[in-house]
């Protein structure tokens, strides 16, 4: 069932839409949630919550890319859970590692999220697709460096080195825009 058909089902308020997204996107969304939460149970709850959020969002939303739309909901829900669970203590996992890696390009809390996103978007589009994808895999999907390395056939050290270079370039870009 393609994206448009599923979205039409949402607009018709047909519960088949939930069945369809569950069947087609469960694995994808679960991966995102597990990357962040490292818990099967929490991830499953996140994924189920994703369908409900999508149900409430469509309509009025009509996402052009259902994959990214649902993945984004799952990611935000998982990060919310992660933050709630880790408000008192610092733990391990990919989120913590990713946060540490992003420490060098930390932007002030007062900065506008939208402006930061705009700069990151422009930056990623100026990079090669491969570098952009590796960055997104690491910091959007929270994939481990090992997983990314396996996907590209690179060594982990090469991926870590690539990510460092990308972050350094992004830092310069953010500095030039006055966001750091």
């Amino acid at each position, binding site marked *: 069932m393609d994206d448009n058909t599923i979205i039409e089902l949402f607009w018709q308020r047909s519960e088949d839409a*939930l069945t*369809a997204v569950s*069947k087609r996107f469960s694995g994808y969304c679960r991966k995102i949630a*597990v990357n962040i939460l490292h818990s099967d149970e929490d991830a499953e709850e996140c994924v*189920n919550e994703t369908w409900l959020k999508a149900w409430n969002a469509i309509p009025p939303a009509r996402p052009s890319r259902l994959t990214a739309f649902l993945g984004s909901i799952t990611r935000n829900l998982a990060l919310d859970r992660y933050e709630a669970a880790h408000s008192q203590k610092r733990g391990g996992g990919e989120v913590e590692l990713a946060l540490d890696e992003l420490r060098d390009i930390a*932007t002030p809390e007062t900065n506008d999220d939208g402006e930061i996103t705009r700069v990151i978007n422009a930056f990623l589009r100026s990079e090669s697709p491969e570098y952009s994808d590796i960055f997104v895999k690491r910091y959007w999907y929270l994939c481990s460096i*090992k*997983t990314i390395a*396996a996907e590209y056939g690179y060594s982990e050290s090469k991926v870590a080195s690539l990510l460092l270079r990308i972050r350094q370039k992004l830092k310069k870009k953010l500095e030039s825009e006055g966001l750091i």
Partner: protein
Amino acid sequence: MMKNLRAIGKIDDDLVERAAPKNKVVRVTFAPWLKGAGPIAACMVIAIAVALPQLLKTPAPNPENPGIIAGAGEQNRESSQPNGQLPARLDAIRGLPTGDYTWDEGNNGAEANRLLTNELRLLMREFDSYDPTVKAAFAIVKVESVERFAKNREYGVEGQIATCGVLYNVLGDGLDVPFKVKQYLYGGCTSDEETNLIREGGVYVLPLVTFEGQETWEVYGDLDVLFEVDDKGLIHSHSSYSELNKYDNKPLGELWSDIEYLYKRPLMRSRLAEYIGDGYDVEFGGGDGEYENWDTVRLYLPQTGWNQADKEGFSAKFEYGKITIPTDAPKYNIFIPFAEMTKNEFDIALGEIRQFLALASVDPPMSTPIPNP
């Protein structure tokens, strides 16, 4: 920093979609019993697969002595059993009486609902996943017990968790026994009936998957009772699709023969891994660029880890028995066109691997002989 992580979360959808994790590499692991049996077991798996067509003609054993239908939950060690007994023993497997029902596949939009395919051939291709977060197994399982659970508090779906044992396993990827299979009753689709749930005491041939961090397994693609073995040892697909129901009312051995044939690549992989795995760890994946239609095999010394493979490993490309060294590929990659190779060509490749290891001045323990076909 969380602010940046949130900001990254709002980047354009096309960038996110393009970078979605690909199904690429799976670390091949073997079921504990296969590890324990070592190379002999792997040899027997191959030998059994090769001999299967002939062996299928052997008569079934005495029904009163059904052989391998041991208590579910016991680990099956059939691959190390004497060659020649397997198909007959397969046909001696008995499940529960089953109703003559067919899923409402065609009339309820189920083709769209069905996650995968209406052909075993395509199912196996899809099922042969490279996803590093997915573990997969295709096995004949017996259900020990079933526990129902009430509606999920988030989604309002009820279902069951079945505790299962393994009777046979084509390529077990960490399928320890007993293992648990979770199934849901979604409602409004193919999986909406009680008949879609596996039953206590039943025997099924199931494609199984589980995900990183998940304790239970799922039947891949909601093919929940595909295939069921009845009390006479006959197959029931409960499917209206001709490529699936062509096995209906036939002995289990015939289906299993097809499954093993379709699983040629993993069998080759397991054989290769057993062959060279004494000295090296092996990872399989897809190739990139000009090698995208090839399988990649990475070899590395276990003590160094695969992130050191570019220092400790080597590279080679097999093409119908000829071996070349791609200059632009990572040093530790070997490209093998499993899908295109005949068994004979694969045998040649195994020999070439051995020769290459010698030429590459590496020193793996090569005590494992090339298995005889």
